[in-house]
């Protein structure tokens, strides 16, 4: 068990960069989520860790062991890395029973028959699959198949478990159940887990830290709370939660608080930068009041269950999202008050 460290890792596919200059460290025992829109490079990063792809530049280490170096061409093949990988398609071997699928990694490691049987039983028990041990994968449901895939990668006690959108092919109810399976498992084993997803709710619910990726780069690597409350740039602010990014002008910072001009109103802002340029307005930063800082017109109403999401257009043309328990009709005028939004600096 050890930290996974990447330094200046890059990957190009026939000239087109898929990953650029990734330098980061995943701590031992952490549950990491790689989050981003499709094509952002998150799966490529995971496949680099697994050894299915060779980095074009930079170095990947686990502890003090070098796994791959794109500059020297050195690479430890996947089969010698001792990592577990859970595939989106499950990748169960259709010609083997559930038990054989799970015990195969132990066979490869030349364990004795008794040890294989004992450890396989433990893994099947842990994933609740004991009753299905002698079935073929084709006789299982989607959720059961994903449990087999998880059991298969756990059985060999890997240094890290890599998961590539493992819940993407399952329905909503099953997803929630399996999320708890994954988090419970993580709590019990304290194995390092790297989890790729494009679903931010999934990432928020499970991960200790989330790396938000876009265009082959990590935009922000932080805890779920910080990503939501203290986004570093426009992409993160807009991708995580429903944030609207607007400019902030003439910021004055005092010892206690900072104030700036947002959409023509003078409001208090929070920031860790001395001269922030933008603020992120989330629904909870906006309150509907008669005597609001700015006037807006309701353009669209969506019922969320118990509350409404209002898409409003301010007088200056900016679209702002607000939440309310009361019902408003499209076309109504209302006032909005801005309360302490997060401000950041972006060129």
């Amino acid at each position: 068990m050890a930290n996974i460290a990447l330094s200046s890792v890059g990957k190009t596919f026939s000239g087109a960069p898929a990953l650029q200059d990734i330098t980061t460290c995943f701590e031992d025992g952490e549950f990491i989520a790689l989050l981003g829109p499709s094509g952002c490079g998150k799966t490529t990063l995971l496949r680099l860790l697994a050894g299915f792809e060779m980095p074009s530049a930079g170095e990947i280490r686990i502890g003090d062991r070098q796994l791959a170096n794109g500059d020297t061409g050195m690479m430890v093949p996947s089969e010698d890395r001792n990592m577990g990988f859970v595939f989106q398609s499950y990748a169960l071997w259709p010609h083997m029973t559930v038990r054989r699928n799970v015990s195969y990694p132990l066979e490869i490691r030349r364990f004795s028959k008794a040890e294989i049987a004992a450890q396989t039983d433990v893994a099947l028990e842990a994933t609740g699959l004991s009753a299905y041990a002698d079935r073929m994968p084709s006789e299982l449901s989607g959720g059961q198949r994903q449990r087999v895939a998880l059991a298969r990668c756990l059985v060999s006690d890997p240094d890290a478990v890599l998961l590539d959108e493992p819940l993407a092919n399952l329905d909503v109810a099953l997803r929630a159940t399996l999320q708890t399976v994954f988090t419970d498992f993580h709590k019990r084993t304290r194995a390092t887990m790297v989890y790729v997803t494009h679903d931010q709710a999934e990432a928020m619910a499970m991960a200790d830290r989330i790396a938000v990726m876009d265009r082959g780069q990590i935009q922000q690597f932080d805890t779920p709370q910080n990503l939501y409350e203290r986004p570093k740039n426009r992409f993160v602010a807009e991708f995580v939660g429903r944030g609207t990014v607007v400019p902030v002008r003439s910021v004055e910072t005092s010892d206690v608080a900072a104030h700036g001009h947002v959409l023509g109103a003078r409001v208090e802002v929070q920031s860790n930068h001395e001269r922030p340029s933008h603020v992120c307005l989330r629904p909870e930063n906006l309150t509907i009041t008669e005597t609001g800082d700015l006037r807006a017109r309701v353009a669209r109403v969506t019922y969320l269950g118990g509350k409404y999401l209002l898409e409003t257009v301010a007088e200056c043309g900016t679209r702002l999202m607000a939440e309310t328990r009361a019902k408003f009709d499209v076309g109504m005028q209302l006032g909005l008050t801005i309360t302490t939004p997060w401000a950041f600096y972006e060129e």
Partner: protein
Amino acid sequence: MQKGGSRSEGRLLGAILVVAICLTLAPVLRLFVEGFADQGAIGLTLASEVLSQPATLTALKHSLVTAGLGTVVSLVLGAAFAFLVALTDLRAKGALVFCLMIPMMIPPQITALSWTQIMGPSSVLLKTLGIAPPLGTPQPLYSAEGIILLLGIQHMSIIFLTLRAGLRSIPQDVVEAARISGARGLRTWWQVVMPLTLPSLAAGIAITFVTALGNFGIPAMLGIPAGYVTLPTLVYQKLAGLGTSVLAEVSVLAMLIGVVAVVGILVQRFFQTRQKVFLVGATSRPLAIPLGAVRLPVEILLWAVVCVILVLPMFGLLATSLVPAYGVPLRVDTVTLTSWWEVLFRQPVTTRAFANSFGLAFGAAFVLVVLCLPLAWLMERNPTRLSRVFDSLLDLPYALPGVVLSIAMILLLINLPFTEATLYGTIWIIFLAYLARFFAVMFRPVQASLKQLDPAMGEAAQSVGASLFQRLRDVIVPLSAPAAAAGGILVFLTAFNELTVSALLWSSGTETLGVVIFNLDDSGETAMASALAMTIVLVVMVLMIAVQLLSRRFPKGVVPWQT
């Protein structure tokens, strides 16, 4: 693009690729070199000399005429069947398709032999029925027309298969759209279905022409007695009569056939890529136009045609194989199994041929399975520039006429480099020629099944620590075993029946079954030739039925007659 995978995969791919290229492309390359670089001016003089000989020109003309008109016959039969089977609601389509595949799988010399047994003055079947023409009348099939007819029947399956595949890819909604716009009946067929199928039809015509051009069995059995010589039989006669002293001369002829064939192959490729453009889009349900009241008559007609081209000749063959001597009518008191007994157990030549053909076919199937399975998987996973070039060329030894490949093999192996040894005259030259010729027969089904295999299957094994060998043994081989088995059976089937290549490469002691049937018939032992041919037909049928029965377990695209 490097798709990933480990370095050991790259090394293994390189090693197998070199072996595969040496096997398949080296002979073709060697023939090419012979023609263009090796001999320079002398070669050109020889080439122009050979090409201006009247015998060459006549043979070229005969080849083009028989192949061209034979293709027309194939087109008429194959297209009629394809349109009816693919577009309408005929019953028992599976059985019909299976029967239409049999002509392709029965070796041409047996087709020719069986047809001569139901025509002409000495036909046992006609004599038995008392309708044989008087002695002295010529065998009508010993003519250009006979060759054309049998070439047409032999290759109708090719047109049928390609056209049917093209038709099945037309979604029903295009035809429904035409109907809702007001087009009816034949107008839909002519204005919507036909334009969409033209590329696959053109590709089918081109490849049928190439196959007919390279056919040796039919013109050899029917043309040589009539003095009607085509290019493949000319090459055979020269090489059989004068030995390797005419090697330079026959390689010019082989190249002539090769050039015509390559043009045909290029035409086929061109239309095949056109077809792919059309195939984009969802193919929902295939078409099934109701025939209504004419369904039963159409079905009767189709099955009657199948009877005439398939069952009748086989009865002729069977009748001949059961009489004591050729020309004796078949009666209760003349029925004998002597010929069967002779060819199966007594004649040393036929038993040797059985052993040779079985060994060659089994050996070729085995070696090709071992070679193609890892190669196809590695090429799928780590495509390199070399592997892609190889992928586009590996059909060449199979698509080129057998005569061309045989001459290329002789040129390559008559003097092994750096030694005095030669493989010419040994069984190994036939074996290597079979490996080259049937490489594509094995490779394509395996490739088709591996393309459908989730790449994560191998990666999952890799991530749990399985080495390259373990991954192949435990995951890839079991998962592609059905396709490999189908490919193996197909290779066995084609190699077991092969005539063209072995006819040019055999020598005493290395006869194959194809050669022996040809020689028995040539020396007048028609009854024994028929018994041997019947045995082979039975083996072919059993193997085809085995593939058919297993076909449900194979991935799509593995069994050639199930598209």
